[in-house]
Each structure stands twice: as structure tokens, then as C-alpha cells.
């Protein structure tokens, strides 16, 4: 049941990503090109998504538990630390260079263009590297 709900949610998410232009690196880079030819349309995409979650989570999180699970699987960390900041900076740089972030990159597999494979392999490689680094610290 959880896997099926997740499939449906993933599909809705994927439709949203494709429909919004997040899977178009040109659009993403245009959105980040605030000091050049700024394409603000993705502001509305994120703004819309965040508005929905901001309004709905307030109610969802007051529930005793999710409908089909024993508890909410929420992250425990609360501190803003160096790891978070360094990670965010690196992510932002990479996002600008490639024009992709994880979600749209995975969804783009549907486009059957082998180029995205390069991004994905590098991405998982980077994540794996991160995992190793974290173990050392």
C-alpha cells in the first residue's frame, strides 16, 4: 500500500516537474540568471508548491499518525551547521552548472536521452563521495 501510494505520488510529482519546466535545464538556468536574462517562471512553480505544503502541512502534522503508517518519518536534525551550509553551497553551484537538480534529472530518464546518464552517474558518485566524507568526520 505504501509502495503504491508512493508510486502515485511520484507520478504526480513527475507530471508536475515536466509540466513546470523544471526538466528543462535552459529554463532552470534562466531562472538562476537573475542578473542576466531572468526567466522568473520557476518562482511561481516553487512558490505554488510551497504554498500548498505550508497550508496543508499545518493540518497534516497535527494528526496522531499518517493514515497508512505508524508514525511520520521526519528528520531529527534541527541545528544549522557547517555541513548543511557547505552542502547547500555546493548544490547551488552544481545546479547552476548543469541546470539539473535530482528530481528533474531522474524524471528526465523518460526522455531517453543518454546525456542525463552522465549527470546521474556523477550525482550518485558525488553522493557516495559525500557518504564517505561524512564517515570520516
Amino acid at each position, binding site marked *: 500500500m505504501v509502495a503504491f501510494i508512493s508510486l502515485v505520488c511520484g507520478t*504526480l510529482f513527475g507530471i508536475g516537474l515536466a509540466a513546470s519546466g523544471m526538466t528543462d535545464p535552459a529554463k532552470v538556468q534562466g531562472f538562476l540568471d537573475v542578473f542576466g536574462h531572468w526567466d522568473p517562471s520557476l518562482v511561481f512553480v516553487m512558490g505554488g508548491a510551497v504554498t500548498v505544503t505550508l497550508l496543508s502541512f499545518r493540518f497534516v502534522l497535527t494528526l496522531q499518525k499518517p493514515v497508512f503508517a505508524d508514525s511520520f518519518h521526519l528528520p531529527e536534525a534541527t541545528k544549522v551547521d557547517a555541513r548543511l551550509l557547505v*552542502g547547500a553551497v555546493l548544490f547551488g553551484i552544481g545546479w547552476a552548472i548543469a541546470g539539473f537538480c535530482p528530481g528533474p534529472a531522474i524524471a528526465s530518464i*523518460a526522455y531517453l536521452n543518454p546525456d542525463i546518464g552522465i*549527470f546521474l552517474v556523477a550525482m550518485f558518485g558525488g553522493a557516495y563521495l559525500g557518504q564517505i566524507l561524512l564517515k570520516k568526520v
Partner: protein
Amino acid sequence: MIGTSAVILLWLPGRIAGVCGIAYGAMSRISGGNFDKEELSWRLTFLLGLILGAAIFHLVSGAEIPIRDINLIALATGGLLVGLGTKLGSGCTSGHGVVGIGRLSVRSIVATMTFMIAGITSMFVFRHVLGLI
């Protein structure tokens, strides 16, 4: 669509719709040989859904697939930084941006502002100062 998906995922099975958390969670379980059915399967089906969703959108709407000529080195370098950054930063645009801010998580709000500023600054430097992208 994206917001609604995140709300349903939290409401029904209580999970966070953060793509990199989902993807790396699946990756570490598979590479660690931990094939815990429920924890692995919901992650894989979500990722599969992303691909299906994109396919369905283009098939139904007839919208053109955005194939852009991005430099392969840019894809590889960017990919590496995205992977490393999202792993260290514990999240990406969906996890921190959509879900995290929705939860009013200070960590996520800070992370989102940080990666946005980093992305915008990088864009400026790489495109307008260095003329690379």
C-alpha cells in the same frame, strides 16, 4: 501538482517527498545489501513514478521534450557537485525547498536560501563573468 504530491506522501504513508533523500536512501540500502522491503520499495516506486509522470505529461500534452545541448563536462561537474552537495546538505529543492519550508524547518529555510543564492551567484559568475555557460 508537486505540492499536492508532497502533501499526500506525508499524509498517507508519512514520508518526506525529498528526491535526493529518497534516491540516496535507496542507493545506500541497495549497496549495503539491506533489502528491507518496505523502506526500499516505496523509494523505488516513487522514483519510478517520477519517470512515469514525465512520460505521461509529454505523451498526453504533446509538449516538446526539452533536449538541450548541455556540455557533457558541465553535466558531469554539475552532477558531482549536486550529488556531494545534496548529500552533505541532506536535501535538495524538493526536500528542503518544498517539504522543509512547508514544515517551517529552520534548517530547510536556511538551506534553501543558501543554495538559491549559490546558484544565482554561480550563474552570474559562470555566464556573465567567465562566459562559460
